Each structure stands twice: as structure tokens, then as C-alpha cells.
């Protein structure tokens, strides 16, 4: 169902906070997460097609629990890759300390 066919309200009454400094970053983040969601859904669809091929070859379908388990692992791995840069903590106090230590090391090498 596209937005033009929809009859429901799409924006909630109330504030929409901005956390990343400006609305542009926030908007891009929302678009990025939507695209990641679609990518993950496509990966599940590819997995469905692989299962159909297995069946067509006479190999039978995988156990539904096994299918769900491997999809959970795939989603989790994808999310870990997405969040790696956040976990790294750019701008955090620990990162500033690492940067300061590196700058000091650079100075040492030239002394």
C-alpha cells in the first residue's frame, strides 16, 4: 500500500526531537535505517528462493527452526556491522584520550 492509497495519519501529534545536531542528519539516518530494513527483507526473500531451489532439486526444505536461527544470526551480524562505528565511540572521552595518546606518540617520534 503506497502513501497515496493510505487513509491513516502518518505523523504523530507531539514533538519530534532531533539528537544529531540538525534535521538533515536525522532525516538521512531515518532513510538509512529504512533501506537497511528493506535490504534485510530482501536477504530473507533470497533465502526463501534458495529453499525453493533445494526443494525443486529434491533435497527437501530445511527445518523451519534452522531457517529462523540462521536468519536471526544474519540480521544480528548485519546490525553489528552497521553499529560498529557507533560502538567505536567517536567523540567520547575514551576516544579523545586515544587521540591525545596518538598525537603524543607522533611528537615523540620527531624528537
Amino acid at each position, binding site marked *: *500500500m503506497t502513501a497515496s492509497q*493510505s*487513509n*491513516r*495519519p*502518518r*505523523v*504523530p*501529534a*507531539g*514533538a519530534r*526531537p532531533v*539528537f*544529531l545536531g540538525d534535521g538533515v*542528519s*536525522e532525516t538521512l*539516518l*531515518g532513510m538509512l*535505517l*529504512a533501506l*537497511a*530494513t*528493506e535490504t*534485510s*527483507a530482501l536477504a*530473507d*526473500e533470497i533465502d*526463501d528462493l534458495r529453499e525453493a531451489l533445494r526443494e525443486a532439486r529434491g533435497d527437501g526444505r530445511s527445518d523451519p527452526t534452522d531457517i*529462523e536461527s540462521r*536468519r*536471526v544470526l544474519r*540480521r*544480528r551480524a548485519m*546490525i*553489528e556491522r552497521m*553499529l560498529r562505528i*557507533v*560502538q567505536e*565511540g*567517536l*567523540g*567520547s*572521552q*575514551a576516544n579523545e584520550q586515544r587521540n591525545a595518546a596518538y598525537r603524543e606518540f607522533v611528537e615523540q617520534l620527531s624528537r
Partner: protein
Amino acid sequence: MAALPACQRAEGRSAVAEASGKRPHELFPERTAGEVARQAFLVEFKKALVHDLRPRIREDFLAAGGKPDDADVRAAALVASLPSHRWYSALARAQHELYVDSTAECVERQAVALRDRARAVRNAARHGTLHLDPSLVPPSYQSAVDIHCVPGGYNLELMPDDVYAAARYELGITLYTLGQHGALNDSKGQAGVAFLQTRFPQLDPRSIVDLGCTVGNSTLPYVDAFPAATVTGIDVSAPALRYAHARSELLGRAVHFRQANAEKLPWADGSVDVVVSHILMHETSRRGLARIFTECHRVLRCGGVMLHVDVPAGRGDADAFDRAMADWETDNNNEPFWRGLHALDLPHMAVEAGFDAASVFDECFDAGHVAFINGRPWWMFGARKECP
């Protein structure tokens, strides 16, 4: 970093798979493979925020000089200044909007069929009843903002006899709670029943009223636990009550649903044995809650019990960091009374409403049912009506 132990992750996964893989009743929205896939990803993403990124914020809080016993104002300011908290907030808000939109789209495409199904069930009802009051005006705390950022809120009606908002709510809470409240989303009701049976073992109610029952998910455990009681659920939302009634019928439980405001209960003085609510208090206001307590006291018989089950945010063994994080919902997710509720002197308000101070209870009760949001036991607040 301190991620959740693997065993707990596995439990969470299986709970979601169980809760989302099967429809618990015929009115539960059907999902396409694409909808299941999108929502599964968003559930996994939320788990990563809660279980992986949130501990990172705590680490940063402590590294920046925060202390578990900090004053709340200082802790809140420090947490808000952390880059990891800003990213957590931006990602959590984006995830929430996508999850709401995904569930809304799924339910809207089948809204007419769900409405017709609910109608058919209602016309053939064998257990309970439905009584709507079209003249009822919802209180402002239910209409001024869309609670939990769901566009249109609980009272939205897209068509006559609509159940869209309620069907979206039931699908939504299954995903929002990561499936941890059971396939029927009844853990709050189960916890309330366990508390009543433990705290008041002699309780043998003939009438039970559930305030703000929405789809009746927390109401049904009382039907099973107290078969001699007449159970009534009230709410201000007509779509919620239509859905709740049909849902209860499909699940074979007798509940009478009535459109009414908890601030003005449609029962005579001293005519009810037990009044309960589940996550109602934090959706009201200081004045509204005072009136609700007063109404509970008025309608209860001598020896009757008022029990409000709510989210244990910032309670129990929560420290300054936990309390700062708990306020996230107030500031960023349209839960305007979340923080205000926890600042109130509720025992004093219960006494003001007429309850005896010695009868007031205010505790987190561990019966094996926990609130997904922080894994803590549900918070039980209430009192028993004592008479001279």
C-alpha cells in the same frame, strides 16, 4: 563491553519467534512474508540498541565521572551530553518510527476484513457483552498527543465500527516488547493475579473491573483465576473495546466491555470487589490519577482491593543512570506523564482518596513476569479499602 549474556539473547529470540510466528487468535493481524521480514529486522535492531548500545552508554557515563548515586539532575545532564546517548536516541527514535509505520501499514491493508470479522464475532457473541457510549469525550491526556508516537492514537477511527487502532496496538506491543510478554501479551495481568493471590490469599471476588483495558490482553488472566467473578473491562477507546470484545469471544472468555472514563466509574458506591489497571497510571496525569484513586475507593466494597500494575521505571534497585535512561520515554517518545508519575507521593494520594495508610502497598513483585524494558519485576501499587 558488557553485552547481554548469550543465554539471555537466545531466550529473547525464541520468545519473539514464538510470539510472532503464530497468530494467537483469529483477529490478530495477518502478515506477509515481507512484513514479517521487515519487523524481524526491526526487532533485532531494537535488541541491539537495548542489549549492546545501552551498556555502552553506562560505560561512558561512568568514564565521564558519573556515579550510581549521583543526583538525578546531574546524572540526566551528563547522560544527555554523551555522544553514545545521542546516537542511541537517534537510532531508537528512527527504529520506533519504522516499527510503528510497518505495523500500521500491515493492519491498514486488512482493516476492512478485521472490522468485518469483529462484527461477525460480536453478532454471535456467547460469553461477554459490549456497551459503547458515543457521547464519551476522552480526557486530554489521551487526546492531546499521540501516546508512544502512534499517529492517531488509541481512539482513531478510519471507518464506522473500526478496529484498526486496536489491531495495530496488539501487533505493535508484541513487537515492541520483543515478544517477552507472552503470545497473548498477558504478563501484566498474570503478574497482577499472582500478586493478589499472594498478598490477599482469602480474596474471593465476585466483581472485578479492569481500568484502561485496551484490547483486554491483561484482563483475561483474571477471568481464569477468579471464575466466580464477573469481569468488566473499561476504556475510553471504542476501537479498543470492539476489538477486545471480539478477541475475548474468540478466546472463549466472558468479559463485559464498557466505554467509560476511569475518572468517573459507572458503578454505585461499594459495589465492586477488585479494581485493577495495567500500565494505566503513567498514561494519565496528577489530577486525573487523584480522581481515579477517589473513584476506586468509592466503588469498592469494604475489604475490596485497588491494584495498579505499572512499569517499574526508576524503581527497585535502579541507580541514577537507570533513572536518567527511564526518562527517555518522556522526552523522546510521547509518554508525557512517565517522569511525572514517578515524582508523585502516591501513598499520600491514596490516603487523600480515602484509603487507610496501613493498607497501601507499593512494591515490585517478582512472580516470574518482568517488564521487557528493564527486565525488572512489575510494579504493584494500590490499597485495600478498610471500613470501620
